């Protein structure tokens, strides 16, 4: 028999345990102010974007630059290459002069540009070779975003010599993959060649290229790989087809890109890397933000229920809360991710299912616990306009007892044109930043209007191909920015086995392990946090100078906000920094976190005997 005394003791202990467990849950629930968006309080810099001086000679503008502080672009601004060059000059805070023919540009009496970027479709290299040589003699380096036709290069020795090509081994060769050497783009050496069957889906690069062999005075940054070439060269690395290289002339350098890389956002990083190759060090502003966007997660309506149950043996609500969210949380912990979840009240508006307010509140609570920002998804299935969708959603949001204010939204590219109209709707009126799919003609980062910024997607985790990885590395190099998406609409409406969650998750996880690893040093942000940094970045102006081992950076337009810069060197390391802090990304690359208007860096050269 249990004694009264023991019974009492056991009861007290059980009570204490019960209270302890219940109290933590109670405290968690009561303390979670999930209906209030903390990020709404973030202080956003006002729009006083750095104003680029642009002189389009093709459009009839007069040449206006007195100093060499401009980039000369020979090409058309309205082409993909032109758009990339234009964006890069804007982000690197450089002025630009554009002309579609060198005949429009008169160098006599004018200051030579800092850098000449050429779209070969707008120049006759054979006839204009003297012009380019004269530019080299003046110390102007040249980037050929695309190379002239193969026949031109093949038939003209001078052109070949000018570009640093000793000979063309074959007009066309099918390479096994590509190798990007370290020290050019951030992320280290990368081989774009599938080694396993599971990697073959990543290969989406154009593998047929002309085989240019480069000679003395050149440096190659990317080559095509050949596994079974048994030619005269005995498979020597130095004879692999060159894809990106430079020819040095002492006074200036000629960069050549044999491929279509400059007509995508990859071009941004390539240009930054080339500028870095031209100087002993390079300082430029970056955003320093890594966003992971959960697009259409959660979907609040139990759509597509029958098919969904067939695949996942449960409805969307249960699947989201029991399977997806816990897995996303573990992924976030493993890779130190910060999510921005774009809640979709409903995706397929032809489906009769209604959004569930309780589910909404539950996820807001989850998000609040995990530092996840809740945005609003403007994506929807076809058959309805954006404005109509928002009108429908409005009803749902109005019905909620406690209102949550979203400051971020995700926009479908097809609805980009109707964004201005949609943004007037009450449920999105507080939105300050919009993420949308990438379009080469739309700047990655820009102001849509005075209040709203645009942050384009730059990568996707579930289907990261080699081309996308090259783009990721490029944008990280140029901007220190990544907007990676995980789109769930396809998981909830799978069209093939590839769209099912278990496969999507494996792909995401392996991509995060491999391709994002070099960039973990950048800050993880939600879209709203990133918005603040983007605004500072767009507003910034800067100047830098060097005296011996000391670099001085003067920053303007940061409005007491923290801003970020990238420092790239060639064998030098930061010894001391005043006015901010620094962190090493990889050899010769640093993030500078700057909190004052003047920063001093002291460098030490590791290539010198101390």
């Amino acid at each position: 028999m249990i004694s009264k005394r023991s019974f009492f003791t056991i009861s007290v202990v059980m009570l204490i345990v019960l209270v302890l467990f219940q109290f933590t849950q109670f405290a968690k629930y009561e303390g979670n102010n999930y209906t209030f968006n903390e990020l709404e309080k973030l202080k956003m810099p006002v729009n006083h974007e750095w104003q680029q001086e642009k002189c389009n000679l093709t459009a009839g503008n007069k040449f206006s630059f007195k100093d060499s502080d401009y980039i000369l672009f020979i090409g058309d601004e309205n082409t993909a290459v032109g758009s990339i060059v234009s964006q890069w000059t804007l982000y690197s805070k450089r002025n630009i002069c554009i002309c579609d023919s060198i005949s429009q540009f008169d160098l006599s009496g004018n200051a030579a540009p800092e850098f000449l970027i050429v779209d070969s479709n707008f120049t006759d290299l054979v006839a204009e070779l003297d012009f380019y040589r004269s530019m080299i003699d003046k110390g102007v380096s040249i980037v050929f975003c695309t190379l002239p036709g193969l026949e031109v290069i093949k038939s003209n020795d001078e052109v070949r010599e000018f570009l640093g090509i000793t000979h063309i081994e074959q007009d066309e060769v099918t390479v096994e993959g590509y190798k990007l050497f370290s020290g050019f783009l951030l992320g280290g050496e990368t081989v774009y060649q599938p080694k396993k069957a599971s990697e073959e889906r990543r290969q989406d690069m154009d593998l047929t290229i002309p085989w240019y062999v480069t000679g003395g005075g050149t440096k190659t940054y990317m080559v095509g790989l050949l596994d079974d070439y048994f030619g005269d060269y005995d498979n020597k690395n130095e004879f692999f087809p060159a894809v990106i290289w430079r020819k040095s002339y002492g006074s200036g350098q000629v960069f050549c890109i044999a491929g279509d890389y400059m007509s995508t956002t990859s071009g941004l990083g390539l240009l930054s890397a080339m500028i870095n190759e031209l100087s002993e060090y390079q300082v430029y502003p970056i955003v320093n933000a890594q966003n992971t966007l959960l697009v259409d997660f959660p979907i609040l309506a139990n759509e597509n229920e029958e098919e969904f149950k067939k695949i996942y043996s449960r409805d969307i609500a249960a699947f989201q809360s029991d399977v997806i969210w816990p897995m996303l949380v573990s992924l976030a912990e493993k890779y130190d991710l910060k999510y921005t979840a774009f809640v979709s009240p409903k995706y397929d508006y032809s489906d009769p299912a209604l959004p569930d307010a309780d589910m909404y509140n539950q996820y807001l609570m989850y998000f609040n616990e995990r530092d996840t920002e809740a945005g609003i998804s403007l994506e929807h299935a076809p058959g309805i306009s954006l404005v109509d969708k928002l009108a429908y959603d409005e009803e749902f949001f109005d019905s909620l007892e406690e209102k949550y204010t979203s400051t971020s939204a995700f926009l479908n590219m097809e609805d980009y044109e109707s964004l201005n109209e949609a943004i007037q709707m009450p449920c999105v009126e507080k939105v300050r930043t919009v993420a949308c799919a990438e379009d080469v003609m739309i700047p990655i980062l820009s102001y849509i209007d005075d209040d709203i910024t645009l942050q384009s997607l730059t990568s996707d985790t579930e289907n990261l191909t080699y081309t996308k990885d090259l783009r990721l590395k490029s944008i990280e190099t140029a901007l220190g920015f990544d907007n990676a998406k995980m789109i769930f609409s396809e998981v909830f409406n799978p069209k093939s086995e590839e769209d099912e969650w278990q496969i999507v998750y494996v792909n995401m996880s392996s991509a995060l392990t491999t391709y994002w690893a070099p960039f973990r040093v950048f800050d993880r942000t939600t879209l709203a946090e990133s918005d603040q940094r983007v605004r500072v970045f767009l507003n910034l102006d800067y100047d830098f100078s060097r005296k011996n081992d000391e670099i001085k950076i003067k920053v303007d337009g940061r409005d007491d906000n923290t801003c970020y810069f990238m420092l790239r060197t060639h064998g030098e390391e930061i010894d001391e920094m005043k006015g901010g802090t620094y962190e090493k990304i990889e050899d010769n690359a640093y993030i500078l976190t700057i909190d004052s208007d003047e920063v001093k860096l002291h460098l030490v050269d590791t290539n010198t005997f101390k």
Partner: protein
Amino acid sequence: MSMALVTFFQLLKLLAVYLFITVFMPHFVLGKTLKLKSRYEKFIIYTVIGNFYVINLVYLLLILHIAYPVTIFLFTFVPIIVLKIILENIPVKDIVLEKIEILRRLVGGQLKIKAYISQRIPEWKLWMNKVKLHFYRVYFKNLTDVIGIIFIIGIVFWSFGLTHFEQFGYKASDEIVHNYWINEMSDNNIFCTGVYPYGFHCIVFFMKSLFGIDTYIILRLLAWIETLWVILIAFCFLKLVCKSKYMPYIGIIVYSLAKMYKLEDYWRYAASLPQEYGMIFIVPVLYFLYAFFRQQRKESRGDVSNRSRLYLMLLAMSFSLTFTIHFYGTIVAGLICVAVAIGFCVWCFKVRNLRRLLITALLSILIAITPLSMGLIMGKGFQASLNWGMNVLSGKGDDVEVEVDDTVTDDDESGKLVTNRYEIEEKYGKVIGSAVFILRAVRNNMFYNVFSIERDNINVLYIFLLIIPTLIGCGIYFILRRDKDSVYGMTAVSIGVLWIFMCILISLVTFGLPVVMDTNRSRVYFAYFTCITIPFTLDSILYIFAGKLNDKKRISNAISLLCVAFTLVLLISGGFVRERLKVNGAELNDAITCLTKIINDEKKFSWTIISANDENRMARDSGFHYEIIRLLDNMEYVGARGRVCIPTENVFVFIEKIPGDYYQPYENSGQSISEAGCENRLPMSQGLSCYQGENRWIVMSRAYAWANKFMELYPNEVSVYWESDEFICYKIVQNPYRLFNFAIDYDYNLRVYPVREEIEE
């Protein structure tokens, strides 16, 4: 850390390693077994045994192609430990069982650690007391000797060592060749360029393999250690045979400090070379012969220790070592044997002794020759320099034509007379004339080859000839006078006879004898033996006089101390202290400094040095080397159309802004690289000549022009790693998977140069 400081620590490490090999290791095994009383004798014996063991061990492992650090470690220490256990009858099993039992009790809690420690404390105290006593006996009881040895080390360091802190490079042209041979040993290739005495190389290879000291560091600094050992061995010998305590110091002081030798007599001590290393084992031959006869005498009178056999074994070892290290040492050792045979003729030709000595001689020759014969059996021919040596010995060499030089210069009243043998014989008669000719010939050879004195004082050199009658006279006096001094007397006669041989050795050409050793080498031995003959002669004289006194030991010690003091005072106050040894390195200090830094800092085999010759061998264990002439030659006339790829991530280019001559001075030696230098045709790339004399200036000028152009083309990839007024080192960082083509157009390589004959025309 400055390079001088780095060199100091490297020297300390090397000294510790060499002490370990030659003193501690043999002492560990044989210390208790041999029970030697004299520390000086111990030092000689340990040095011989240590070297003999290491050289033969390394040779065996190399012949078996298993010479790697692990095998060297095992085959060095396992036999040593086993030998110690056997020799000292150490009950290993009991000791191990006892320790296991203690451990078991400690683990089981039957024995507390505190209790165990308190049990051990008395043992430790006892041990500490023993150590204290030992230190007291060794150091405090012999304080004057301790101070004396420190003084010797000090003067040897000042005289021969400081140059290594001023010039870091190799100081003799053949050091780089020895470096190459030692490098090849890493691939178990012992006779890479032919059969050659390998002893010195084995020692260096042993230190490199077992202690991880780079070969180039050993070769840079072993020179001083071998010099110290050569002098210490002579000192120990003198301490063992001299009757007075301090007389041995005079020899060392005079030899190390006196301004009476020519630079050629001792400059070779600045370089680590086999001949000088082999000198360590010459005096031990003399000592072991002396010790054998002394011991034999004792044994014939009832001593049962049978130690004479030990001395014969050691004699065989040291004689074979001279052969194993350098043949010239063997010639001198052979002369020593003959001299001792004459000096100790009374005992030497006793049948028993003669038999034992002949067996020893055969054994030592067998020990020395067998390894070389193995090399020959393996199909390797003699190394080229050995062929030359053999020709010298057989009189077939082109440059060793033996001519009877009957003419000896001498001053007459007019000061210009040249007297020849026939005139002297005519003047003084056949017999006296011949004697006068011989004396003058030796004197003149001493004047021209050994001693640095004013011509007017040339007759002072007869003093060195007086040593012969003095020693032989004193020796005979002691032999005849007292039985117990007969060994001393015979030693004096032996050294006197040896001195005759040395006088003949430096005068071979004059006397028309076969030149078994060229004068440049024999003068080194001659000068070295002055540090034995001078103090021993003085000691003999002193012993004759002091021997008659009652308190002869104390008085002779006091007089010898006074002699040391007088010598020092005379040298210092009379301004007879010579300048310390200063020898220029073949390489600039900056180059060695850079090389050391590169080896220490850069990842192994991730770098290549482009330079002129020496680094080729020095850097072999850590990186790669590319000849500067090969680089330039590959782009001559073809420019960027040539192809020069160097497959390492980092490439260092060593360029001398003021090129050295590399042992071949020319009219404009010391001129800076210049455009004028570039405007010359590139020298032919075969052999060493392209790096010597004016050619080096042309090559360096061209290399500088190339480097500057390359830096212009690759500003971020090329940096100046080190620069001084005389030297510049560039560092080139390249992508190892896509190498730079180092062939570029640097203007001068695309010009057509007229051939020299055309210019001269």
